[in-house]
C-alpha cells in the first residue's frame, strides 16, 4: 500500500469538498423549494400557465423538430463536405451560442412587429423554435451517425432508393437518439423565460387561440417573484417546474436505457 502524503490527503479533501458543494447546492435548492412550496401546489390556479406552456412546447417542437431532422438528414446522408456544409455547421454553432435575450429581441422585432403576430403564443413559439433548432439538428445528427452503415448498404442492395432507405431504415433506427434531443428541447422551452416574455407577453388567462398572449410557467414564476405579490404561489409554481424537469429527466433515462439495452 502506498502511504498517502499530507499533500495528497489535503487534495483529496478539497476534491471531496467541491463535490459536496455541488451536491449541497442541488439539495439546498430542491429542499428549499419543496419545503416551502409543497403546501401551495394548486394546479387549478396554474391552469392558464400550464395550457400556455403546452401550446408553446407544441409550436416550438412542431416547427423545430421536422426542420431540424430534415437538416440533420441533409448533413449526414446527402451533403458532401464543402462550403455549404461548413456554412450550415457554422450557422448551427452560432445559433446555439446566441443568448435567449437576443432571441427575444429578434422575435419581438420580427414576429411580434414585422410579421404582425403581436405579443402572442405564436410569436413566442416561433421564437423558441429557432432557439431549439440547433439542439435538434445536433442530437439528430449524432443519432444518425450511430446507425451502422451496414443498414444503409443492406437496404440499398435490396434495390431501395436512398429516400426509402433513410425513411424506413435509418430514421427508425435513430428514433431513441432523436427523442432524447426532443425531450431536452422540451425542457429548454419550458425553462425559457427571457425570449418568451418579450414575444408572448404576460397575459395570465387560458388562451383561446395561439394569436393571444399567454404566460408560461417560467414567465409566471418570474412575474410572481419579481412583483412579490404572492410568494406562496411562486413556490407552488417552482415545484411544478421542478417536477416537470424531474419527469423529463426520467423520460430521457428511460429512452437511454432502451438505447443501450438488450440487443
Amino acid at each position, binding site marked *: 500500500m502506498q502511504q498517502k502524503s499530507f499533500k495528497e490527503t489535503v487534495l483529496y479533501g478539497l476534491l471531496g469538498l467541491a463535490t459536496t458543494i455541488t451536491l449541497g447546492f442541488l439539495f439546498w435548492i430542491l429542499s428549499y423549494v419543496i419545503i416551502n412550496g409543497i403546501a401551495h401546489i394548486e394546479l387549478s390556479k396554474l391552469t392558464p400557465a400550464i395550457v400556455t406552456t403546452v401550446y408553446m412546447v407544441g409550436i416550438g417542437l412542431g416547427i423545430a423538430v421536422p426542420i431540424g431532422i430534415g437538416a440533420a438528414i441533409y448533413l449526414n446522408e446527402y451533403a*458532401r463536405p464543402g462550403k455549404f456544409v461548413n456554412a450550415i455547421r457554422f450557422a448551427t454553432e452560432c445559433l446555439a451560442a446566441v443568448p435567449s435575450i437576443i432571441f427575444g429581441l429578434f422575435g419581438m422585432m420580427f414576429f411580434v412587429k414585422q410579421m404582425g403576430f403581436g405579443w402572442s403564443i405564436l410569436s413566442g413559439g416561433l421564437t423558441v423554435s429557432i432557439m431549439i433548432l440547433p439542439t435538434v439538428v445536433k442530437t439528430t445528427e449524432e443519432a444518425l451517425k450511430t446507425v*451502422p452503415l*451496414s*443498414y444503409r*448498404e*443492406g*437496404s*440499398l*442492395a*435490396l*434495390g*431501395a*432508393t436512398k429516400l*426509402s432507405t433513410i425513411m*424506413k*431504415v435509418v430514421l*427508425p*433506427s435513430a428514433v431513441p437518439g432523436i427523442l432524447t434531443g426532443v425531450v431536452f428541447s422540451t425542457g429548454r422551452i419550458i425553462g425559457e423565460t427571457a425570449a418568451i416574455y418579450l414575444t408572448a407577453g404576460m397575459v395570465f388567462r387560458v388562451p383561446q387561440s395561439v394569436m393571444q398572449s399567454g404566460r408560461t410557467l417560467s414567465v409566471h414564476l418570474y412575474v410572481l417573484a419579481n412583483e412579490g405579490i404572492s410568494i406562496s404561489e411562486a413556490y407552488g409554481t417552482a415545484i411544478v417546474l421542478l417536477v416537470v424537469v424531474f419527469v423529463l429527466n426520467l423520460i430521457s433515462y428511460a429512452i437511454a436505457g432502451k438505447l443501450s439495452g438488450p*440487443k
Partner: protein
Amino acid sequence: MGNIMSIENLDFYYGDFKALKNINLQAVEKEVLAFIGPSGCGKSTLLRILNRMSDLTAGSRVDGKITFRNEDIFKMDTIDLRRKVGMVFQKPNPFPMSIYDNIAYGPRMQGLKDKNELDKIVEESLKKAAIWEEVKDKLKKSAIGVSGGQQQRLCIARAVAMSPEVLLMDEPTSALDPISTLKIEDLVNELKQQYTIIMVTHNMQQAARISDKTAFFLLGELVEVGETGQIFSTPQQKKTEDYITGRFG
C-alpha cells in the same frame, strides 16, 4: 447454360490507386462462382461493382464494361439492377425491425401491399433460406434477437424475397461459427438450383466445397479462373499454386 454476367476489360480506381486491372470474367447461369485471393486483392471490390454498391464510394471510377443479360449495368437504373442482383454482406445486417418486416422490406418497397401475398413471400423466402422452421413462431420478434448464423440466413432470405437472378455474397460466413458456416454452405448448394451465386471467400476449403468455378485474384489482377476442381488440383499458374498450397497470403 449461358453467361448471365460478363465483365470485359474492367479497371477500377480509388482516386489514383488502380484497385482492379483489366478484369475479364464471366458468370454462368445457375452456377456458383467463387472469388479467392489474399486480402486487398480486389475480390470484394469487384463483387461490389457487380451491383454498383461501389457507386457509394466517393472518388472511385470504373473503366470497361459489365453486362447483365447483355445489358450494360452502368447504363441500367441502379435500383433495377440491385433488385435483380441481390447481395449478402460479410457481417449479417438485419434491420432493427421484426423478422417479418425484414423479409417483407424489399417487396413492400416495390409497392406490394397485399397481406396474403406478403405472407406467402415471407414464408417461401424463409423456407428457401432454410430458416423457416426456426423462426416461424417468432416472425413478429426483432430480427436483432436471433443468433448470428440465423441473422445471416435471414439476410439471405431477405435477398431471396426480391426474386433476384444473381446473388452476390461477400464472405458470408466469415463472421459465423463453424456449424452456422456449414448450414450456409448447404444452403448455397440448394440456392444454386434457382440462382446464380457469386461469392467472395477467404476460406479455400469453402470455395472447393461449394463452387463450380473459382477465380483467383492477386494485387488487383485476375490470375486464373476455371473449374473449381481443376483450379485446386492442377492450377495453370505458378502464383495460383503458391496461394492454394499456402505458400503466401
